[in-house]
C-alpha cells in the first residue's frame, strides 16, 4: 500500500469510527442502558461494552450520558453484588466481571465494584469442588476431556464449570480494579485462573471455549476466546503457551471474515505490540449500521478497535515475540 492509499484508508477508518460512535450514542435507551439491538430492552452486557467504547478513552463522550449509563448499571446490581444477564434473572453471571471493569474507573461506583469483586472471588465453579473431583476420578472421566481439576477459574453461570472466556473476564476485572477494592483472596483466585487458562489451551496454541481435547481429539482454537485469554494474560508471567497462542492468532488473523473477530484480534495484537498481518477483510468493509445489526457489542468492539487513544486494551509500544520459546522483548 503506498502512502496515498494509506492516508485514504486512515480517513475511511476514522469516518467509520465517528459513525460508530454517533450510532452508539443514539442507541442509548431512555433508562440509560443499551439493548443488543436498536429499541430492544436494555441489558447489562451491551451497556458495559458501550460504556467502554464511549467513555474509556482519552477523548471521552458526554458526561451526562456516562452518568445515565452508570446509573443504569448500578441499578441492575443484585443484593449479593453480582450482575444478572437479563433484567428478570435473579442470579448473577459472568457479566459481573465485565461490569466491574466498565465501572472500575468511576469513583461513584466504587462500592458497587467492590461488592461485585467480592461476589466474584467467592464464586467457585462446581466442577472443581473436592466432591466433583472425587466423582470424576471414580468414573474415570479424564479419558473424556484432558484437564487439571485443581485449577479453578469462573463459569458463565454460578455452580457450573470453569470456561475460558468468563475466566479471562474475571482476571481482567481483578486487574482493572483499584487494589483497595480487591478481596483478600484475589491473588489466590488470580493464580488459579491463570493456571487454568494455560491448562485449557489448545495443543497448537490458542483457546476455544475450554475443551482442548475431547475423546482424545485435539480441539481447534477460536479467535474470540483466544483474544480474551491473551488480553487477560498480558500482565501474567511469560509462558511459552502465550507466545504459541500469539503466533496462532497472528497466523489466523489473515483469514478472519467477521467484524467482531477482526476488531478484537486487532486490539489484542496491538496490545502486545505485534504488527498486524494483511487481511482478506478490513473493518471498513462494514458500515456502522451493518455492525449495529450484528449487535451493540460488535459496534462497540469496532469503535474501540479504531480508537488509537483507547485506555483498554491499550496500544503497546513494545513488541512481544511470537516464537514459542520467546519472551517479552
Amino acid at each position, binding site marked *: 500500500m503506498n502512502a496515498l492509499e494509506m492516508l485514504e484508508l486512515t480517513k475511511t477508518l476514522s469516518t467509520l469510527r465517528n459513525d460508530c460512535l454517533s450510532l452508539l450514542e443514539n442507541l442509548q435507551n431512555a433508562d440509560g442502558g443499551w*439493548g*443488543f*439491538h436498536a429499541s*430492544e*430492552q436494555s*441489558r447489562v*452486557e451491551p451497556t458495559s461494552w458501550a460504556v467502554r467504547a464511549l467513555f474509556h478513552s482519552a477523548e471521552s463522550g458526554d458526561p451526562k450520558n456516562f452518568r445515565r449509563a452508570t446509573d443504569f448499571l448500578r441499578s441492575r446490581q443484585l443484593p449479593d453484588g453480582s450482575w444478572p*444477564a*437479563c433484567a*428478570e*434473572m435473579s442470579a448473577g*453471571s*459472568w457479566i459481573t466481571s465485565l461490569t466491574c471493569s466498565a465501572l472500575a474507573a468511576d469513583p461513584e461506583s466504587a462500592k458497587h465494584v467492590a461488592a461485585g469483586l467480592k461476589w466474584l472471588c467467592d464464586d467457585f465453579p*462446581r466442577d472443581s469442588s473436592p466432591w466433583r473431583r472425587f466423582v470424576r476420578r471414580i468414573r474415570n472421566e479424564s479419558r473424556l476431556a484432558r484437564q487439571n481439576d485443581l485449577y479453578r477459574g469462573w*463459569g*458463565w*453461570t454460578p*455452580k*457450573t*464449570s470453569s*470456561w475460558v*472466556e*468468563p475466566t479471562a473476564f474475571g482476571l481482567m476485572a481483578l486487574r482493572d480494579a483499584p487494589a483497595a477494592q480487591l478481596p483478600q483472596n484475589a491473588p489466590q483466585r488470580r493464580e488459579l485462573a491463570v493456571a487454568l487458562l494455560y491448562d485449557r489451551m489448545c495443543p497448537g496454541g490458542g483457546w*476455544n*471455549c475450554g475443551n482442548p481435547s*475431547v*475423546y482424545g*481429539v485435539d480441539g481447534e482454537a*477460536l*479467535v*474470540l476466546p483466544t483474544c480474551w485469554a491473551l488480553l487477560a494474560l498480558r500482565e501474567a508471567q511469560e509462558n511459552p503457551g502465550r507466545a504459541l497462542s500469539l503466533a496462532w492468532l497472528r497466523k489466523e488473523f489473515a483469514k*478472519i*471474515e*467477521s*467484524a*467482531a*473477530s477482526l476488531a478484537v484480534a486487532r486490539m489484542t495484537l496491538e496490545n502486545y505490540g505485534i504488527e498486524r498481518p494483511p487481511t482478506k477483510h478490513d473493518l471498513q468493509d462494514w458500515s456502522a449500521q451493518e455492525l449495529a*445489526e*450484528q*449487535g451493540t*457489542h*460488535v459496534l462497540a468492539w469496532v469503535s474501540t478497535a479504531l480508537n488509537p487513544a483507547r485506555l483498554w486494551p491499550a496500544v503497546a509500544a513494545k513488541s512481544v515475540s511470537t516464537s514459542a520459546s520467546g519472551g517479552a522483548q
Partner: protein
Amino acid sequence: MNLRNRELVPSFSRPASRVMIRKAARYEEDLLALIYESLTEFHLPVKDKTILLKPNLVGLDPQGVMNTHPAVIAATRESFLKLGASRVMIGDGPALDRDTQAILESVRLEEFTGKLGKDFCDLNIDDLERVQLETRATRLKELFLPKTVLGVDFLVSMPKLKTHHWAGVTLSLKNMFGTVPGSCYGWPKNVLHWAGIDRSILDINASARPDFAIVDGILGMEGNGPTQGTPKAAGVLLFGDDPVAVDSTACRVMGLLPDKVDYLARAGTMLGHVETSKIQQLGEGIEAVRTPFSVLPEFTRLLA
C-alpha cells in the same frame, strides 16, 4: 404473541404422525423442487404466517460437514415463501462460538439465500421472555428464551443427521438447544449440561416446540459428533410434523434404536411418537435408505 403450543399430550391420545423420507444424493440437486413438493404433501398452515427456520449452525464449517447445509436452508426458505408464508426468518444461537457472523461467513449462507438482513436472527442475543418449565424434567424452574422463537407462527427445526458424543444422536429435538440464548447461559450453555442434557432437551422442546422438522441427511456425521466426527453420506432428507417421530425415523435410518436414546424414549411419552405403528411413513421406506452410522463405545447400546 404465539407462545408456542405447550400443551402436553400423552402418546395414546395423539393422532399418528407423518414422516417423509426423500432421497437426495447431492446438494447440487434441485433441492427447491424436492423440498417444495415434499412440504406440499403435508398441507401445512403457513399461508400469511411468519416462519422461523432453526438450522444447526454449530461452528465454523468451511467444508460443510457439521452444519445444516445452506443449500437445504435456502431451498426450504424459498419453498415456504412459495407456499404463501409472509416472512421466513432463519435463526440460531451457536453453542460454542459467540461470533455467529463468522459462522455464517464460513458456511456462505447468504450466497445461497441472498442478503438476509433482519431475516436472520442471532438467537444468542435476541430479546428474552421468561418461560416457566411445566415439564420439570430438569430441576430448572424457568428458562429465558428468545422472543423471536416464542413469537413466530410456525417453527421448523432443521438439524443435520449426526451422532453426538454426549447425547447419542443430535437431531431435531437436540437442535433446539440452539434456541437457548448464550447471552444468558454462555458459550457453551453449560447450565443445561449440569441440569442433564437428556432432560434439558425435554424441557426446551416442551417450552419451544417445533411445529415441523426437516433433517439434512444428505451428508451426515458419525462417531464423535457433533463437530469432530466423520462425515457420512446418507443421501436423504427427512420431513415430518412431529419432531419426535422424525428423530426416531432418522435413528432407524442410521441403524440405531430410538427407544434406547434416553431423551427420545422420554419424549415419546409426552411430545410425540417413537413407535413405528404410530408413524405414517411417506416417501421412501426406511430399509431402502438405511445407512448404518458408527457410534462411540459409550453408545453401542443404540446399535440395532
